[in-house]
């Protein structure tokens, strides 16, 4: 099945969700817990089905699935933490969740930003320039013009190498 050749929106959505389920299960099994992977994938698809039923195309569904997956993973971690012996607190005693970032998440975000800044500072000039242009919203084609590269694939390659180098500088993970 070639997902890029789907013309029927309904069929495309079905195909995309099917592929997503398979990928999410595999991802959750490798990064989280194999026994909970199925449940995690199911929870993501439920959210997509219930709240985003109007989205049909892959370009919308895939990034949405990544965001939901991230939230579900975080929720799963918090749930596992709550089940620990050292944090036996009655659910009724827990405060209601707020839309605002918690101090913990704010701290984590700040820490992640500092790590990223430090890693960027250790990159070479070209990588820093590419990242800067991307942060400015420039596409690869624009970056090619700005940096005077002869081929767009050159920019792809440069960016790919820079991303790998940046990830290595951050210890192999974007999050601590």
């Amino acid at each position, binding site marked *: 099945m070639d997902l890029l050749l789907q013309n029927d929106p309904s069929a495309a959505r079905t195909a995309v969700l099917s592929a997503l389920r398979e990928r999410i299960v595999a991802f959750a099994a490798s990064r989280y817990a194999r026994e909970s992977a199925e449940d995690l994938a199911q929870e993501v698809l439920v959210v997509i089905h219930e709240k985003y039923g109007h989205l049909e195309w892959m370009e919308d569904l895939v990034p949405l699935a990544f965001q939901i997956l991230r939230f579900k993973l975080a929720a799963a971690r918090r749930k596992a933490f709550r089940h620990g012996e050292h944090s036996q607190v009655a659910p009724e005693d827990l405060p209601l969740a707020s839309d605002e970032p918690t101090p913990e998440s704010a701290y984590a*975000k700040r820490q992640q930003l500092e790590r990223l800044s430090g890693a960027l500072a250790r990159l070479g000039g070209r990588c*820093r320039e590419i990242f800067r242009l991307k942060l400015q919203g420039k596409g690869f084609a624009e970056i090619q013009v700005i940096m005077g590269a002869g081929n767009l694939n050159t920019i792809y390659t440069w960016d790919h190498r820079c991303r790998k180098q940046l990830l290595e500088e951050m210890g192999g993970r974007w999050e601590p």
Partner: protein
Amino acid sequence: MTPREAEQLLGGYATGTLTEAERRVLFAAALEDQTLFNALADEEALRELLADPGARAKLLAALDPPTAHIRPLWRRPGTMALAASLLVAVGVGLLLRHGPAPEAPGVHAPALSEEQPKAAPPSQKIVAASPPPELEEKRSSVRSSPQTDRVPAPPSPLAPITSAENHAALAPMREKAEAKQAPEPPSARAGASIAGAFAFAPGVARDASKVAAAPTWILEAAPAGSFRLKVSWGPEGHLYLLRRDASGVSTIKPEISSLQDGKMESLFTGAVGAGSALDLYLLPEESKVPETLPAEGPAQRFRHRIWPVEK
């Protein structure tokens, strides 16, 4: 595009800079390739961070291109320090090259109005030639100097006469010389005439506000009515030597002026005849017309009639 090729688009996902076509290719490849899917899922954390405008602005500020901070070459500290060093070096060099020479501090004497003996070079030691017996006697008797407290030197026919030799000691000699003046030609009484002849030449520019103590001098006789006068004086002030005779007042300038051991030493040469008088001045300020300096009346710091010697 293969998943491997699509992986190169990962870097644009978190920053949100992929085109629609690139996004489609990347997502399709991710749905078919688990590794790429996992990488994209991991990239979500970075994408979420970069989606925050504040975090994005901070990163952009940290990634400002280095060219924005490049200062012009002339404003860099290293360049400025180098320029300052060069400036100081050039200034010091110019000062050393064109500054006042310590050996000859700017003599600005008026034109010499009298004949100067040129026989002996200025640096040559001045020795009285054929001093008369009267002069030798006086030299031996006037060695003590109230100004310099010098130890009296042993009598010598060639010993110079110093300013410390008081006037009373020289007076009899002067009288004798004057007595012989009429019948004898000047050359015949040169030694006697020169014995008291002092001349001081025009001022050496110094700090006008501080004129040091009175100068000391040594007069040495020379043949043919000429004299040589060596004056040692403080490094400040203006020194003048005037000759007064029947023809008027003239200024005698020094042949040599040099700074030695913190004191100025000036050498004058010239000739004086009968009826001439030599006045020595050490003034705190420069005199434009030294010839107008008074021979009598209230003294300006230092004035002394060195010839004829007063009783």
